[in-house]
């Protein structure tokens, strides 16, 4: 099997070929780097390549296969990480110039250690909004990530480099982070799969913080199986992250193929069917129909939940950067600087009110899961918008593009629910919108099973850019 034939393949297929001795990790790496060098200038997904490390990791995998040993479930799989993850020997820039003054990371983020420990080959670092504070990956220092489906449009954010790299077939797997939607928004508008497990499920140790009580890590990929594969490798307790669940987590890949017949699937109504493009409704209704879901439920107070998420984010986010806001605020990206300053100035009463509302809202939403297992909702209200555009028209309203992209994701991260995003192509539409499959806390398996079922019926599918 030629290495070129594996470009664009899933991580599952690549690992099988490498473990089976049909392809060499080093050959695939060479082909991958050549493809990145050819395509990346047009999409600006990778901001740095880690070629030396990648060559060493690929050589190690090949040596193990040659010696009859198993390199692990990600054998030879090229992957990239958002530039928010620590990578040993690299400075974690977090999309900023300020962090250039920091020393290189002394070790990998825990989940990066686990991916490479399973045979993964880290090829580079991916573009993002500065300090993850955005939904569009428009970065004033490093340029915007461009959407592979339409280079004039945003790849979504803040993990836009991760989504663009996967959508363009540069790597089958990338890590992003999600505080308000930063995995789900770019997955939606780049037409790929994204997975944000339950808050506290995957370690965040060695990941530069944005808003600590909302920060999640997770994968973006080209199939549901690949999301589960990456999750299975990354799961497990981590004493370096005080939020990470201390109990072991079950593997999901083997169980996700089970029949979804018993899964009770509801469709989100109210807020999630308002202020959106027709295509987003078509995505929702097409998936619901394919799954035989007819029951609509309303997530209560979703608009207020989005407001609470905004308040908590801006205040927690500002606290991370207080010293630099005092001493060198001119070095921040102008797109985020004034939002951080406003967050620094916000009264404590706003924050505590938001955290108290958060508890009330959590209790109400969790009660919904007594009568259903998953809830379907659009991931974004619209297709990707043109880069650097300030305002957009939606349902007759003029709305700010950068904030509006998170309309359907923010109310859900607020309470840490596990969510899978799948691409649902609509005939005749060039630009993607994804579907959120929302499960109860710690029930990632329910969301993955539904995602898998949608793939099997062909409703969820990757469309070539």
């Amino acid at each position, binding site marked *: 099997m030629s290495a070129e034939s594996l470009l664009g393949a899933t991580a599952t297929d690549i690992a099988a070929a490498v473990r089976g001795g049909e392809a060499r990790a080093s050959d695939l790496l060479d082909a991958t780097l050549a493809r990145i060098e050819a395509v990346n200038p047009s999409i600006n997904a990778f901001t740095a390549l880690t070629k030396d490390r990648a060559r060493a990791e690929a050589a190690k995998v090949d040596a193990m296969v040659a010696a009859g040993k198993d390199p692990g479930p990600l054998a030879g799989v090229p992957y990239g990480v958002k530039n928010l993850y620590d990578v040993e020997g690299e400075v974690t820039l977090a999309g900023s110039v300020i962090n250039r003054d920091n020393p290189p990371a002394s070790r990998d983020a825990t989940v990066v250690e686990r991916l490479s420990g399973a045979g993964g080959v880290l090829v580079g670092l991916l573009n993002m909004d500065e300090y993850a504070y955005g939904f569009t990956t428009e970065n004033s220092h490093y340029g915007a990530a461009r959407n592979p489906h339409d280079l004039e449009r945003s790849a979504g954010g803040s993990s836009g480099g991760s989504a663009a790299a996967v959508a363009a077939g540069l790597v089958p797997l990338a890590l992003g982070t999600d505080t308000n939607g930063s995995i789900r928004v770019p997955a939606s508008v780049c037409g790929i799969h994204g997975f944000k497990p339950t808050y506290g499920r995957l370690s965040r140790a060695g990941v530069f913080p944005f808003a600590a*009580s909302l920060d999640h890590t997770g994968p973006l990929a080209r199939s549901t199986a690949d999301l589960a594969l990456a999750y299975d490798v990354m799961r497990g307790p981590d004493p370096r992250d005080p939020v990470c669940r201390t109990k072991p987590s079950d593997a999901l890949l083997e169980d996700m193929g089970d029949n979804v017949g018993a899964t009770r699937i509801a469709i989100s109504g109210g807020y999630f069917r308002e202020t959106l493009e027709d295509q987003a409704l078509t995505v929702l209704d097409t998936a619901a129909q394919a799954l035989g879901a007819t029951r609509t439920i309303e997530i209560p*107070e979703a*608009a*207020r939940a*989005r*407001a*609470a998420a*905004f*308040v908590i984010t*801006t205040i927690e986010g500002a606290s991370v950067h*207080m010293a630099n*806001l*005092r001493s060198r*605020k001119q070095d921040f990206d102008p797109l985020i600087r*004034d*939002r951080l*300053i*406003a*967050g*620094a*100035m*916000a009264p404590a*009463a*706003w924050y*505590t*009110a*938001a*955290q*108290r*509302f*958060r*508890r*009330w809202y*959590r209790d109400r939403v969790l009660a919904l899961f007594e009568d259903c297992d998953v809830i379907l909702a659009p991931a974004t209200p619209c297709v990707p918008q043109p880069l650097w555009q300030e305002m957009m028209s939606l349902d007759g309203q003029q709305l700010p593009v950068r904030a509006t992209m998170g309309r359907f994701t923010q109310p859900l991260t607020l*309470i840490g629910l596990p969510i899978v995003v799948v691409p649902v192509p609509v005939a005749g539409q060039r630009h993607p919108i994804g579907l959120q499959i929302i499960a109860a806390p710690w029930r990632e398996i329910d969301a993955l099973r539904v995602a898998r079922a949608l793939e099997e019926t062909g409703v969820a599918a990757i469309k070539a850019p």
Partner: protein
Amino acid sequence: MNEDFDLDQYVALMAETLGIPMTEAERPEVILQMRRTADLAAQVMEFEPPQDLEPAPVFKP
């Protein structure tokens, strides 16, 4: 919550309190962001949960 509070004065005072340098020219954009935050905070502040409600998240040592 008083939604008509003087944001200009508030931002100037808080910049001084927190030690964030800010010129007159820089202030309007911060005021705009503060207004957006205040409008969203107003939605949260007008909600009155039971007084004994435990805030989220719960810290687990």
